[in-house]
């Protein structure tokens, strides 16, 4: 179980991004972390995986614990070794490496299980099996996303952090990614799903957190959040009373000042 409590993260020693964030990812569950741009979602994933250093950020308060061990200041390689892998935002495939080599990098900490995981990934993504010798840089966005997920799976993680896996993908592909997540989860892996696409995320999440300005402002079961009015209005873009039009509304009518989020009052 991953447990983040009261985490504060400061960039460049001046910019406070996370202000006492607390979330939990129980084993075997899919947890969604939602929020608009700049809410601190990606920072959260960096804080878990130890990548804050690259961005001049550091956790100043609070802890991240993983299966009882404090990993707040652990090195990325140690964290991956302990069973947390991530699919980074924007896929970040190694464009100059072939598909096989990309997958090999994913198994860097998992030398013994490399063969097993490789077969698993090839089963999961038949597309990749067709393009094993191709340079990753020349593949389409969807294929790259699959490669990125496959690469993360190569480490045989117990927790998979996915940062915006649906970003920039066609709806059909989003659907596919969603299915893959479910499949992975069904195999016993817990997933921390960081998304802007709240609909997609909440539809499969066991639990969800909504982040604003570096704090959790709302949390609850996936279904409960989906049903929440504020979530509907601000994250799903649905307006109350417009429901029969199913989301079609003129933005002329949007008067934000009229409605305040209840957590902001």
């Amino acid at each position, binding site marked *: 179980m991953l447990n983040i409590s009261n985490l504060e993260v400061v960039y460049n020693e001046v910019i406070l991004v996370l202000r006492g964030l607390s979330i939990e990812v129980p084993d075997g569950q899919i947890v969604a972390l939602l929020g608009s741009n700049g809410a601190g979602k990606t920072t959260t994933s960096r804080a878990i*995986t*130890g*990548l804050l*250093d*690259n961005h001049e950020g550091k956790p100043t308060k609070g802890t991240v614990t993983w299966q009882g061990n404090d990993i707040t200041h652990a*090195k*990325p*390689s140690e*964290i*991956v*070794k302990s069973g947390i*892998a*991530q699919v*980074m935002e924007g896929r*970040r*495939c*190694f*464009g*100059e*490496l072939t598909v096989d*080599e*990309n997958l*090999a*990098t*994913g198994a*860097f*900490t998992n*030398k013994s299980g490399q063969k097993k995981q490789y077969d698993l990934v090839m089963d999961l993504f038949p597309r990749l099996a067709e393009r094993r010798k191709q340079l990753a840089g020349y593949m389409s966005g969807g294929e790259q996303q699959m490669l990125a997920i496959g*690469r*993360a799976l190569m*480490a045989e993680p117990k927790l998979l952090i996915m940062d915006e896996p649906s970003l920039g993908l066609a709806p059909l592909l989003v659907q596919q990614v969603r299915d893959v997540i479910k499949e992975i989860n069904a195999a016993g892996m817990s997933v921390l799903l960081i998304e802007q696409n709240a609909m997609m995320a909440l539809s499969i999440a066991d639990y969800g957190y909504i982040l604003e300005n570096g704090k959790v402002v709302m949390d609850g079961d996936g279904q409960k959040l989906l049903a929440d009015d504020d979530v509907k209005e601000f994250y799903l873009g649905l307006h109350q009373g417009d429901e029969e039009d199913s989301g079609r509304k003129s933005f002329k009518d949007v008067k934000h000042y009229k409605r305040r989020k209840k957590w902001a009052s």
Partner: protein
Amino acid sequence: MEIFIQTLAKAIALGSIYAIMGLSFVLIFKGTQVLNFAAGAISMAGALFMSILIADRGFPFLPFTNPLAPADGETAGVALWIVHLMIALILAAILGLILERVAIRPMVGQPLFSMAVITLGLEIAIRPFNLDATAITGRSVGVPWGTESWELAGAIIPKSYVAAIIAAAIAFTGVYFFYRSRFGVAMRAVAFDQEAAMAQGINVGRVFAIAWGLGAALAALGAIFFAMAPWPPAGTVSLEIHPIWIFRVLPVIILGGLDSVAGAVAGGLLIAIFEIFAGQYLSQWTNILGPGYSTIVPYIVMLVVLLVRPYGLFGTEEIRRV
């Protein structure tokens, strides 16, 4: 005809030395995104290690002497010499590791040119030690074959030329296969996207260390073969090793493409062939071309190639932001 063969042999031998040096640059650049301006200092230190081992028979501040070294006044046999060469390369690699740990590791993720200036600082700081160690006396690397040469169809080909070509071939093969190994793939991943590589659990620090260790060893290899008899320092380790890295090898690695192993070799050979052949066959035009014209031939070749192929012959076509 003899002249042509002689010239060709010299060009290929010089190209081999350029290639070894280029490989050192490429390895470090690809692994750590650092353009290593300290290569001159590191390589000269490596050559000094060789000289100290084989000529002084041990470091003065250590209590024991080198038990393998040949007796005073004698030169080592080829096998023994190669053993010494290996030890010197290992010492150079250790120096590379130390420098990486002390000066480069804390800079992981910093801009390219900041790192380059760090290496420049290292070069400035290490150079006096090299100067002090060579002082005024010529330091030999104890080459077994000395100034001996072979005759081929009337052309005189020094054995050192052949040795340099063999060394470059071995170095190239080694680096080529290294790049296909587990660590090699990790290194290329780090080169492409450091953060993504970290996210895969690749220990970037270790990759940096390996790149610098190997790079330093290659640098020392280049310097040791450049310190053999027919080359300018005439069989000695001299401060002339410092400038060759910056002044003559830069066009080589740029021509080949900064991040290409094959490019380093091709660039080295191409530049050396142009340089040596221009020196040999255009010498009657010196009045027009100016004294020492062959020194700028590499740059002219580089300019022409780059205007046609902006990322060198084998470089990756990607805009590197600096």
